[in-house]
């Protein structure tokens, strides 16, 4: 039997290590207790919300159907303000026209819109995001737009992408020409996700945009913007009041040529553009380009053989 080597340091290290681990486990145990209590409170609040929401929805259905009785909503407003707002916004995308206006007026009357405007200026990102998403919904209603002022326009320069997108969607609903132009230019940026989302919203404003900003961008010569514009116009999948596509169909950039040929069947083209389609269909260098030109020619009733 030998003496124990390194006795004192081993015991000291053991105590240090044991204490460290014990402190660590104790700390996390206390943290868990706190988190469980917090979680329990959150779950309780969620249960309360679930209980009250059907009644709120029912009351909102009545208001949407034309009932002037807001008493049920007002009764819940003090204790369930967030639930009232959430239930109101749950109709987003399912109502339009007069029904939507009634909801927006209700939000304004209940003071929710002013509250959201206040939150829209908050430094807390989550609060700001939530507020801007809600304001984007209600700004279809003119009195709400007046209450919101230029908050949405200012938020187009917010540091957060999500807020910029929500603001842009709200501005599209407001239908102001200058705002539409700003939103359209924003949609042409490098973020393809924002473009996909905004293209859906801007579809309804296609005529106004094609009258003004679209031709300007197409003539700008900035390849990325031109490409994005053509892509967005094709995504609208509706007749576009553009007649001059010839420079784009014969553009040096292949992506632009392809995008222009995809768009061509949706336009009422002039003679030069129609001739460009015929030339593109006859060209043998690029199979995708010639097949797209063929499709465009067929849709536009251009008889390829005769033209050739």
């Amino acid at each position: 039997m030998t003496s124990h080597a390194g006795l004192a340091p081993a015991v000291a290290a053991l105590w240090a290590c044991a204490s460290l681990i014990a402190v660590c486990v104790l700390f996390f145990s206390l943290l868990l207790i706190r988190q469980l209590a917090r979680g329990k409170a959150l779950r309780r609040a969620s249960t309360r919300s679930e209980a009250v929401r059907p009644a709120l929805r029912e009351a909102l259905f009545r208001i949407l159907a034309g009932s002037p009785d807001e008493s049920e909503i007002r009764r819940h407003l003090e204790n369930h303000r967030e639930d009232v707002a959430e239930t109101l916004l749950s109709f987003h995308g399912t109502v339009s026209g007069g029904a939507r206006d009634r909801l927006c007026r209700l939000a304004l009357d209940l003071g929710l819109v002013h509250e959201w405007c206040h939150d829209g200026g908050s430094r807390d990102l989550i609060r700001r995001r939530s507020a801007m998403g809600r304001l984007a919904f209600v700004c279809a209603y003119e009195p709400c737009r007046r209450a919101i002022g230029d908050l949405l326009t200012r938020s187009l320069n917010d540091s957060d992408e999500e807020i910029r997108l929500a603001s842009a969607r709200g501005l599209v609903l407001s239908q102001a020409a200058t705002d539409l132009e700003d939103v359209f230019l924003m949609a042409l940026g490098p973020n393809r996700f924002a473009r996909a989302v905004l293209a859906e919203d801007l579809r309804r404003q296609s005529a106004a945009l094609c009258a003004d900003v679209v031709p300007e961008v197409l003539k700008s010569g900035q390849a990325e913007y031109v490409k994005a514009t053509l892509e967005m116009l094709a995504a609208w999948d509706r007749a576009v009041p553009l007649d001059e596509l010839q420079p784009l169909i014969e553009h040096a950039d292949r992506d632009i040529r392809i995008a222009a040929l995809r768009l061509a069947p949706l336009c009422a083209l002039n003679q030069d553009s129609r001739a460009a389609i015929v030339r593109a269909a006859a060209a043998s260098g690029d199979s995708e380009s010639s097949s797209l030109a063929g499709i465009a020619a067929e849709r536009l009733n251009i008889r390829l053989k005769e033209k050739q």
Partner: protein
Amino acid sequence: MDQAPVLVSALLAGAVGFLLLMAAASMLALFKGASELRHFLRSNSTDYSQVLLGSPMVYGVSVLAVVRDAAPPTRERIRRLLALHCPQHELVLVLEGLSDAARDQWVEDFHLTPVKLEATGGGPAPARYVSSEPAHLTVVEKAREKQNDPYNAALTAARYPVLALVDARVEFIPDLLLHLMRPLLEDWEHVAAVCASALPPPSQGLAARIGALEMLRRWLVRGAAFASWGKLMPIPGSCVLVKRSAVEAAGGFGRGVRQLFRQIYRTKQKLVFLPAPVSWSRAPGSFADLRDHLRYDQAQLAGGPILFSVRLLRPLIESSALLLAAASLYLGWIHPGLAALVLLASVGTGIALSVAAVVLRELADPGTRDPGYVTRLFLTAIPENLGYRQLRNLFLIAGFLRG
């Protein structure tokens, strides 16, 4: 012989130091992972899946899948992959090394029609089929060859600019591709791939809870923390959306997804980790399942210095130190304090890491799980590290040596 106790004590002290160092590094990674998760949950926002579903601007996706049997669960999984929501998507299915009977089963079930292809290069072209069903399904049949070759065969048949790889053992939601697509669309220039993984839903039983603890640590460290450090590695239960151009630039699928990720990082492109509940691994139902999960995970992660230290060095040093400490204590060569220190550096740090993972996850996302389940998971850290951990170390060593 007189020098033996001194030598053993020195070795054990070194092992304790190593284990404590590893534990400290793991704790740091857990904190980093939890912070990333919290950041993600805070920035999580409106669900635009429905908008993307109707948009022609969303890139087409080729989902690549490989099957090696025609069992009903496999066919069911392929049906689910065909039903994924996306404006444009196709499924490229590789039947690898199937018998004629199994191949015929696929042909019958999915109404496959052979497509004639001209032979390219030296050998004959693999047999290819298309489905006459409305679903966009292309099937490539090939003999069983080297690993990941089937994915390269699928790549050849794929036609869209984005590829999706869905882990064979994964559960997923139908909107999976739309959720994964968003980060790609937001930064198409710089993001090469998106990897999504979430924790499995709570399940009962000790094996399931130990499995959940393992997945939780893996998810926080290997997923969230490593992604923020530019070292993301695939996790069992993850789905990956990757740009076709990135795969082609990497020279195909090579030696697996992990290798592909490393190649992507070399080209200075970004990989995004999405800890959203869009896909998750099934919880293990038994200890045999748990071992199977471990083996599967290890097979996905061959090579690499970090894994070498986590998957071989640590288990080897820990197991050796425990054995050596027990033997030396029996022989009276070391002070019981040193033996206790070895045990503490192994079991104690393991418990501390597991409880930390449970609590940090709760801090990042409070109130979403049943408090009873969270408490049980917290307490599972004890049996996990007193028994299972030691066995797991042996499995890891054996798995590593087997290759």
